[in-house]
């Protein structure tokens, strides 16, 4: 009996303590968040003193400068460049790609086509003046296989690549978005996978034909006469004339740019950042368009533009008359037996075409 009052007392005490804790917790719950203001005030004070300290630099504006300059912060989201808030280079890339690359590229390629058509209509191309019937080996089988292998791949890559660049303006109006997307979905992987095969062909070709394309003293004369394309005689030329050598060196420089930039674009898994991909895309587009323009000229000059040239790349042999007309120095070398026959060491000799 004597315990019960004290027991009740204790229970009351406990109840009171509980009540107080609830009130305290509630109060703390409401008041503690307000410390944010204290914190903010402290920070602001600190900021202003920092600002005074760091030679007038306002940390707040510093901060927005960081955002603008794409300085990375911290983010819990894993991934590449996820900590960068704004990248402004994308805008530059967009303007370059949709502007000069797309438009100037089109002007260049179409301009070359138009110029060649006009030239052909006017002059009819270079006719073979005198067919002797005597054949000279110009391209060994291995050269021809290499040429056509690389050529076919180039054309496929050009068509698929240009589809992605110009398709939106040319093919979508013709086939509709669905139709074009179906093609683009094929064109992209085809372009991506065949690029390796093309690279191999290009590299071997450039190495194999290097010795044909070393500039010679008479090349200056060829340029002086503008290759004889606009009247005049036939300027001197070795196995390759100066124009062809120029084409070769365009392939060396443009091809390297094309292949290296293409490598970046091909491997997004290697962790190249956006800036690298943007640059690579511009270089890839620009070099590809330069090469396309050069290749168009090359195709014309190898077919319609110069009668008798194509047979060299098909049967391997050219007419002696053609050689005299276009590659007199080479013909002399062949006839004196000093030329490496058709640039092929193990090939059959072409030095005695009687």
């Amino acid at each position, binding site marked *: 009996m004597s315990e019960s009052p004290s027991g009740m007392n204790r229970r009351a005490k406990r109840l009171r303590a509980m009540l107080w804790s609830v009130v305290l917790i509630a109060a703390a719950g409401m008041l503690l968040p307000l410390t944010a203001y204290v914190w903010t005030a402290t920070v602001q004070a600190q900021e202003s003193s920092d600002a005074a300290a760091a030679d007038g630099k306002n940390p707040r504006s510093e901060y927005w400068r960081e955002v603008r300059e794409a300085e990375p912060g911290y983010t819990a989201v894993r991934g590449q*460049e996820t900590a960068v808030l704004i990248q402004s280079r994308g*805008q530059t890339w967009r303007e370059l790609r949709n502007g000069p690359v797309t438009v100037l590229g089109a002007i260049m390629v179409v301009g070359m086509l138009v110029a060649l058509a006009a030239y052909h209509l006017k002059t009819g191309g270079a006719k073979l003046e005198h067919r002797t019937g005597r054949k000279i080996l110009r391209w060994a089988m291995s050269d021809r296989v290499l040429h056509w292998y690389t050529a076919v791949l180039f054309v496929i890559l050009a068509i698929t690549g240009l589809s992605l660049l110009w398709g939106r303006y040319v093919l979508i109006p013709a086939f509709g978005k669905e139709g074009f997307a179906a093609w683009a979905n094929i064109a992209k992987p085809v372009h991506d996978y065949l690029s390796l095969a093309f690279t191999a062909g290009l590299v071997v070709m450039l190495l194999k034909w290097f010795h044909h394309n070393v500039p010679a003293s008479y090349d200056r004369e060829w340029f002086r006469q503008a290759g004889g394309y606009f009247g005049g005689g036939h300027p001197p030329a070795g196995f390759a004339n100066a124009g062809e050598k120029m084409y070769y060196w365009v392939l060396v420089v443009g091809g390297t740019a094309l292949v290296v930039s293409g490598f970046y674009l091909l*491997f997004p898994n290697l962790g190249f950042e956006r800036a690298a991909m943007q640059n690579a895309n511009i270089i890839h587009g620009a070099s590809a368009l330069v090469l396309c323009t050069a290749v168009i000229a090359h195709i014309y000059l190898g077919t319609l533009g110069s009668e008798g040239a194509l047979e060299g790349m098909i049967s391997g042999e050219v007419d002696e008359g053609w050689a005299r007309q276009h590659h007199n120095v080479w013909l002399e070398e062949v006839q004196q037996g000093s030329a490496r026959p058709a640039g092929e060491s193990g090939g059959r000799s072409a030095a005695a075409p009687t």
Partner: protein
Amino acid sequence: MARMKFLCDSERCIECNGCVTACKNEHEVPWGVNRRRVVTLEDGVPGERSISVACMHCTDAPCAAVCPVDCFYTTDDGIVLHDKDLCIGCGYCFYACPFGAPQYPQKEAFGVRGKMDKCTFCAGGPEGKDNSDEERQKYGKNRIAEGKLPLCAEMCATKALLAGDGDMVADIYRERVTKRSTRPQSWGWLTAYQEDV
């Protein structure tokens, strides 16, 4: 017509990543794809600020301008969406986007990326029927069709992240700025909408 916009109030964002989680959960976005992320600058030092960022649904969207298959479209509400059936995974939109919004499910050799995925402002995609299984699978939930706003902003505990009609969002933000007498810093608006609050 409303012009939908996002605004993240950096004075309020506490980097809880609630928006990120809400988004991932609502749309069941695959592993490795993050439609929204929170970035903290000056992490751990006075002046630290956090910002939640996703596709801003730009005016004159850079992604749309460079897409080779032209698969982007802007809804009447100003939401920038894309058609995954057309996308070829070229990565161009990601190169062009100022905010790093486009995401790819893969990233493999030979340019294999898979179909691009990005924030849809919870507005699904171009599938005929809103919230059809197909739409949900490809683009996630279509809350806009249900008259709801993006879940990230709805879930934001501090209401730092605002989503909705641009004018209303701007009004709310301006009121806040006046009350707390800070300078307005409508992060990303100039870049995305070519105008400030």
